């Protein structure tokens, strides 16, 4: 028996620990989930069989572009963890990729599960007993009151400031509309639609900026992935070692030593960054190397920033330019010229794309400039005055607010009555309530009385 509308929603959540792993599993639960996900998982049969695993491509619902190769485990109603029809989708373990996939799940109508929601459903469907459920509930409660790490808290401070602004604007607008409904006879100025238009546009701008900030906030939440890319023997592994200050990668004279990718993490400022050393990009017949090269391509796709390394002595070749241009299409690239120590002082450095850095992994020359720039790049955007959305839940709720504001905008343009416009604004406010965990309805009434001189 479901008492809450939300019990009928199709929910999803990451089932594997966050961060990088071999695979990442996203669990989806709810009646009709297989059908709803069909635009993403077209390869599923019309009537999937419970406990069977299906293989195929997870695709973008609109463009049909392949997102990842996946395995889907299907569980029919009554035979899953929650007791509802469920899917478990196994992706490759790249957080960026999984994040993108989850956004697409949201696009087709599923929503991120709240803490403890899978267990709640499992209990309500008699799949687990009360003790188990209560254990999870307590855990959920204590987790809710735990403090997340410093940087996140800071951001939440900034974030809540922006959300407060948006909230106050909506309340002000709503109060204006409501005053005109309940106190129309008291000599208030009539609604000026031009003013309303300007007002709502302003609010929309603020919200859109915030909703779009979700991906930037992700960097702080999930950390930065930096891929070190370049032609064979450009000095990638040396660079990685130099940055990390330890002999992590295998360095040798031959091109093509790093067969696989190697990762290691460290903090650039507040941001936990994972550096990924890759095999040199080149055509090769060696099958192991080929594998490594393929991985490089995947790594680029899974990264937030690319350090493109080239050998200063060999100079910036056309091949470099080609690779650089290609990568630049999809993500930021910093050009790093290595082996600076071998560069004779009087040799002119060729024209390089900016930003570029000339470093020596051997002597450490130029390294600090490079790492500081990386830190600066992302800290800058993070220190932006808007604040950033940290969690999927915030993103979802603020997207709802955005939708309502856009709808209200349309109604204002069409000169609909105040009571209709108010409906959309109230819905927006309700979502802000959920986000901030408070009841804002009294605020509207207070606003009416503080702004308008009314009353007999």
């Amino acid at each position: 028996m479901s008492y809450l509308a939300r019990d009928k929603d199709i929910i999803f959540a990451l089932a594997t620990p966050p961060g990088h792993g071999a695979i990442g599993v996203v669990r989806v639960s709810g009646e009709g989930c297989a059908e709803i996900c069909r635009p993403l998982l077209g390869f599923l049969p019309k009537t999937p069989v419970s406990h069977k695993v299906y293989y195929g491509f997870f695709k973008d619902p609109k463009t049909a572009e392949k997102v990842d190769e996946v395995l889907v485990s299907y569980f029919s109603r009554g035979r899953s963890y929650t007791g509802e029809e469920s899917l478990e989708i196994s992706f490759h373990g790249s957080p960026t990729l999984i994040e993108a996939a989850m956004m697409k799940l949201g696009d087709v109508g599923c929503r991120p599960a709240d803490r403890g929601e899978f267990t709640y459903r499992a209990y309500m469907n008699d799949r687990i007993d009360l003790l188990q459920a209560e254990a999870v509930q307590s855990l959920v409660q204590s987790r809710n009151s735990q403090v997340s790490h410093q940087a996140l808290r800071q951001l939440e401070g900034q974030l809540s400031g922006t959300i407060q602004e948006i909230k106050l604007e909506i309340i002000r607008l709503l109060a204006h509309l409501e005053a005109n409904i309940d106190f129309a006879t008291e000599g208030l100025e009539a609604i000026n639609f031009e003013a309303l238009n300007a007002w709502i546009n302003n609010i929309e701008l603020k919200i859109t900026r915030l909703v779009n900030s979700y991906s930037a906030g992700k960097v702080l939440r999930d950390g930065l992935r930096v891929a070190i890319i370049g032609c064979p023997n450009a000095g990638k592994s040396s660079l990685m070692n130099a940055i990390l200050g330890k002999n992590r990668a295998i360095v040798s004279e031959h091109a093509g030593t790093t067969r696989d990718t190697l990762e290691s993490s460290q903090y650039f400022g507040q941001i936990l960054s994972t550096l990924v050393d890759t095999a040199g990009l080149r055509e090769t017949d060696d099958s192991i190397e080929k594998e490594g090269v393929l991985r490089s391509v995947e790594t680029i796709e899974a990264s937030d920033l690319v350090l493109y390394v080239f050998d200063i002595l060999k100079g910036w070749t056309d091949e470099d330019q080609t690779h650089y241009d290609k990568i630049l299409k999809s993500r930021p690239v910093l050009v790093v010229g290595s082996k600076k120590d071998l560069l004779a002082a009087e040799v002119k450095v060729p024209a390089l794309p900016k930003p570029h850095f000339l470093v020596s992994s051997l002597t450490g020359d130029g390294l600090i400039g490079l790492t500081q720039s990386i830190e600066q790049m992302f800290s800058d955007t993070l220190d932006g005055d808007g604040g950033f959305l940290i969690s999927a839940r915030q993103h979802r709720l603020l997207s709802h607010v955005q939708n309502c504001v856009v709808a209200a905008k349309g109604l204002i343009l069409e000169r609909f009555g105040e009571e209709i416009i108010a409906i959309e604004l109230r819905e927006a406010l309700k979502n802000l309530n959920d986000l901030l965990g408070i009841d804002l309805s009294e605020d509207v009434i207070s606003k009416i009385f503080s702004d308008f001189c009314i009353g007999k």
Partner: protein
Amino acid sequence: MLSCEVVVIGGGHAGIEACLATSRLGLSTILVTSNLDRIGYMSCNPAIGGLAKGHMVREIDALGGEMGLATDHSTIQFKRLNATKGPAVRGSRSQCDKQLYSEYMKGVVQRQVGLKVIESEVKSLLLEGDSCHGVLLSDGSQISSRSVIVTTGTFMNAVMHMGGEQTAGGRAGDKATVGLSDQLRSYGFVVNRLKTGTPARLIADSIDWSKTTPQHGDPTFYPFSFRSPRQLQQPQTVCYLSYTNENTHDIIRKNLHLSPMYCGAIEGVGPRYCPSIEDKVTRFAEKASHQTFLEPEGLNTNLIYLQGISTSLPAAVQNEFLKTIPGLEAVKVARYGYAVEYDFVEPTQIQMTLESQGIDNLFLAGQINGTSGYEEAAAQGLWAGLNAAFKIIDRSPFLLRRDQAYMGVLIDDLVTKGTKEPYRMFTSRAEHRLVLREDNTLDRLSDVSEQVGLLGTETFSILKSRFSMRDDIKNNLIKSIVYPNDATNKILIDKGSAPLLKPASFEVLLRRPEISWATLEALGGPNFAVTDVDVFEGVEIDVKYSGYIKRQLDMIRQSVKMESLALPRSLNYGEVQGLSAEEREKLVEKKPETLGVASRISGVNPSAIQAILVYLKGHKSNTGTGDRTWKKQMRKSYLSGELRNGSPT
């Protein structure tokens, strides 16, 4: 010693509805009032209705209450507010002849079978253990009863203030009630203080009307009661508009220190929407003038009510600033404005039925619960009366949900959230405003009313035929087609609407915001002999709002589900896992009757609702037996007046 089944203390707007309801349901009732002449007296503005308030008057009427009939009988100016705005925010307001209103109510009360009126003061309630079984009067005699409904208004420990003068009393010319609030306090009730104010009453002959602007009422009358005649029953009067100015404001500002509200002599929070002129002038200092309406208090009286200028400044100061108002240069004051502070019972201590939580068979209704307004009081009076009666005759409680009536919003807000200032109803308090309209009151409540039983059954058959007439019209609109031609399109363009490119039904056209019923008629609309404005307006509204109404209905269906899950009173929130300390505290304090009520408590999050559901499922066998009957009754009551044909409209 007298005895009866129900005692009602106080003959104001709440008391009248309460005692009429109980006696009409066949329970012997005694109304105790300290002043027989003041039954149904309007303490403040001689007007009934307004946005949301008028809606409640219609609801009271639909259920068989009296306020609508009394108002229609004594209306001397009628206005339809927000007439040009959407149907959900149109309201009716009647300026009444105070004396006629009061005489009407007195007459009804005195003629009512089974109702006895006693002029006396109640000194205290007769309490035994946790139950109330009557009252003790000031002359030492007792009345024993099965329940007591307290509707003492603003009279408990009331003190009136004007400048530095203080007089005990709930209203000019009336005594205060002393003893009751102390008794309640001693039983553990939280009793706090509120204040309200009233403006001066002026002598009509001393006013220079030429300096004011006349305001006439509307030509079309929409009676509050569906049982009233369609025409206005009294001659209509004119009101007059004037304004304060900077001179007025200067005088007030210079004398603020003499205002009891400003020098802290009055404790008690006042209503924000009824600010005194001192408030207005201070908080909105940039406003050069404030409007005021001069309203005649009746057809045969010389008294003028000065609306908008409530004050408690000393008489001399009032005299001075009044004379700066255009038209009032030589005014004579019959009674000066004053403030009243009084005790009220924090309404979170009352159940949804308005029976108190701490004492059985004791019901509280009206301003004693912290509301302001005659309509709010009357609504509670009816609600309490019905519940007191139903409890005695062992029927399920009378309850309305927030989507069924403004009365539902009122009681739910009071009982669940409590109030810090005198609570007044606004349309913005109702999340289901679109479906709580004047025009659909009977649709919403006729089934409930039939069950309640205050009105006769013939009434309902008449109503049902009106509903089917509306459905017929709507179907007709859907089937009849408008063809695009020059004449048609010219009419549309004139209305600022897009011309038709292909044939469309009348119903589709009516959905456009700029098209009204009148336009349809101009377009050669379907031919019905529809003169009943309620009927075609209802159709117009259904069509225009249909998309949004559907959304509201979805929301309503959801909340009905939440309301149907009753929470046992014995639920031990200490055992519920997954609640924050704050949530637990709030739940223990409010003891919500249903899951829906719990979800509306401020600070209680969706995860807490989940936690409660988990707990209830696991502890199904642990609920007390006494609670089970109550639970069943609550559930039945909340679902009474279930969505008719799936829709409340």
